[in-house]
Structures are given as structure tokens and as C-alpha cells.
């Protein structure tokens, strides 16, 4: 498991209060219980803190769309970390 995935999994477990949650690329807001708009923002805030990155409004919105999933989330984080030189 990549480092980003591992750290993001901990963020998900913390936000959704589920220690058994195992992230898979194809997971999305429909497949994770309670992933609504409010928890989505909590997830974004926790992710921003964990990785020391910032998401723009449009990126936050895109990650909530039906065609986006955990895989897209990880790619977006990696891209931000890459452009931060991290």
C-alpha cells in the first residue's frame, strides 16, 4: 500500500469513525456510509491537515461527483504533493 493511501485510510477511519474501513480505489460517496456533504467537508479538512495541502472549491466539489472515487482522491493528493515538491 502506498504511503498516501495508508495515511488517507487513517483519515477516513477517523472521520467516519470506522476502524475496519479499508480503502479501495473504486470506493465512492455511495459505497461509504455517511459520506454526505457535511462529512465530505470534514474529510477534506482532515486530509488538508494530514498532508499539509489545500483544496480549491472546485476540487472539493469534483471529489463529491458520482464519477469520482477514492482512486481520484489519491491521485489529486499525489498531484498536490508533487507540485508542492513533497
Amino acid at each position, binding site marked *: 500500500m502506498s504511503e498516501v493511501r495508508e495515511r488517507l485510510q487513517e483519515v477516513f477511519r477517523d472521520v467516519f469513525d*470506522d476502524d475496519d474501513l479499508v480503502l479501495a480505489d473504486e470506493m465512492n460517496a455511495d459505497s461509504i*456510509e*455517511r459520506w*454526505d*456533504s*457535511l462529512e*465530505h*467537508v*470534514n474529510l*477534506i*479538512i482532515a486530509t488538508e491537515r494530514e498532508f499539509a495541502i489545500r483544496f*480549491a*472549491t*472546485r*476540487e*472539493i*466539489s469534483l471529489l*463529491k461527483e458520482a464519477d469520482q472515487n477514492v482512486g481520484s482522491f489519491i491521485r489529486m493528493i499525489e498531484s498536490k504533493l508533487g507540485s508542492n515538491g513533497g
Partner: protein
Amino acid sequence: MGFVSFGFLGFLAAAVALFHLSPRAGWRRGVLALANLGFLATWVHTPHDALAMGGFVLGSFGLIRLSQRVGWRTLLVASLAALIGGLVWVKRYKLALAVLPADFFEPRLQLIGISYMTFKAVHVLVDAHQRQLAAVSLASYANYQLGFFSLVAGPMQPYPDFRAWWDRIEEPLASREGALRALSRVLHGLLQIGILAALAHGLWQQAIDGALLPEPRGAAALRLTTIFYAYPAYVYFNFSGYCDVVIGAAALLGMRHQENFDRPYLARNMVDFWDRWHISLTHFIRDYVFMTSYKAWAERWPRTARQGGYALLFGALLLAGIWHGSTWNFVIFGAIHGAGVAATRIWGDALRSLFGREGARRYDRDPWIRRAAVLATFHYACFSFLFFEPGFRPALERLAAIAAKVF
């Protein structure tokens, strides 16, 4: 020019034919721009309104470009204030008169589609400020704002989707099946508006016409029932039919619009309702109002984030209600929806806290609870539409008169 008219069908047919006959992308953009201006001309009645419309498009474009270039937060805040202030002024919000002088809204301007145009401008402005868009061009922005499909009543297409289509604008409609699907969508929408919406509106009109006359209790109860169900039916058939026309007409030019309705009266709760009703508006409110404000709240006051979330859910739907119209009844409409959405979230949290995750899951999956929830949500939504009709006082007087006869 209304959508359910031979004039509009002729206009659409001419625009589509010219678009398809145009050999180059530049010509197609020109056809679309002319069609947009031609359609707009049928809605703009005075030189002042035409100037104001042009001023809005050019002014908001200037703010967007400037914001994109300099990235000043103060400029973004001032621009947003100018856009929202402009909307309040043009729509002459009655509630603003509580703090503003009575002649504040003079001179009067009639700008068709200003509510949608303002939200679209806010969306492009925020995304441009946050460096999420490539350079916004005047031609693409003006046609995005004035697109004849969605000028009157949406749906709100995200600018990047429109821009992607505008930039490629290749030979549209690769197949005969695609054309037939688009045409049948237009026809479906027209029939829905012309038959189902007209029928529901006729029933509602008939029911309200005799509302103030004396009648037996049973007749008054039937009248109240008709008003209660017919108006929500009319609003749904009319608006979703209109969206069918828009989506089908846009598809004839190869443009894809997102679906705006998904059987909203089968929603399980009010959060689910807004995921199915006027979806493009819900997404805008969710992204640019709720999630933005909740993120700011949760970062600043993490200890009260949950309570803040409930309050902001209420506020976001209250705003959605107010956005629909300038009179007090839309404040009530928004408050009912805000309360419904916040209560849904509070109820969900309470269930998990009382019965744990497994208990809440069993509750969610119980088919009888689901049926009861759908029925309750449907009636809650119908109740809210009692306050959706423009003209608050006559509606309230009618309801009071009928209720006095029934109860």
C-alpha cells in the same frame, strides 16, 4: 419567446439547421451567438434593459479576468458583494426594504434570467480566483451566460463543461439515433408541459377560483386536497418538462447538460429530495454556499462544527428558497426546506448515537420505514409548495378561508 410555442420550435429548428450546415467551428460558434442574441432580443424590451444585460455580462467578465490575474481576496469579496447586491436590486427583494429606503429599487430593470446568471458568474468568479480555470474568454463567457437553452430558467451548467464543448464544437450528432433521442426528449418535455402541467395547473386554478365562496365542509376538504397536491404536480411537470426541452435541444447541437430531476417525490428525506430536485441548483448551493461556509466554520470553531453544520444546512436551503423569488413566501419556502434538511441530518446523527452503526443501518434498510419516510417526505414537500406560488397574501387568505370551512 416561451418554450411551448410554435415560434420557439421554428427558432430551434432554424438554429439547429444552420448550425449543422456550418462547415467550420468558427461559423458554428457564430450561429450559436446569433441564436442567443436573437432569443435574448425577444425577452429584452427596453434599451435600458439591453444596456444593463450587456453591462452585467461585460462587468462580471471584467471582474473575473481581473480576479484571475491578480488573485486578491479583497477583490473577490467585493466582486461577490457587487453581484449579490445587483441581484437584490434587480429582483427588488421585499425583505431588503426592511433596512433599505423605499425608493432603493428605482429605476426598475427587467433582466431575464438574472438569478441564474448571477450564480453562474459567482461560480466562474470563485473558480477563476482559485486558479481552477484556464483563461476565460469573452466569447465563451458571454455565450455561456446568454445560452438560449438555459437563459430563462437554467439548468446551471458548470462553465468548464460549456467551455469544453465551445472549444471543440466538432461535428455534432454523430448518429441518427442520437438525433432521434434528442428530438424525442424535446417532444417529451413539450407534452409534459402542454398536457400534464397544464392539467395540474387547471385543477389547481379551478380549486383556488372558488376558495372564498361558501360551500359544504366536504367540498372545501376536496378543494384543499386538490390545492395541496395539484400545485406541486404542476411545478414538477412544468419544470422537469422544461428541462427535458433544454436538455434535448442542447443535445441537438452536441451539448450535454446534466440531468436536473430524478423522481424527487420518491425521496426518502429532504436531503434526498434536494439530491433529486433541481440538481444543478443543489450542486451550486452545496459547493459554493454550504461546503464553503461549513469548511470555514469547522476550521475556525472545530468544537461547534456539528451544530454549525446543522445551522449552515438550514441557512443554505433558506438561501435557495429566497433565490427563487423576491417575496416573503419564498423565505418561508426556504425555511421549511432548511428545517427539513437540518432535521434529516440531526435525526440521522441521533439514530447512530442511540442505536449505534448497526442499529442505524437496520433502520435505513427496513422497507416499511422507507415507505413511511417517502410518504412523509412527499407530504412535507407538498406542504412547502403552498408557499411557492408568487403572491403570498392572496394564497394565505385563500388557505385560511378554506381551512375555516373544513375545520
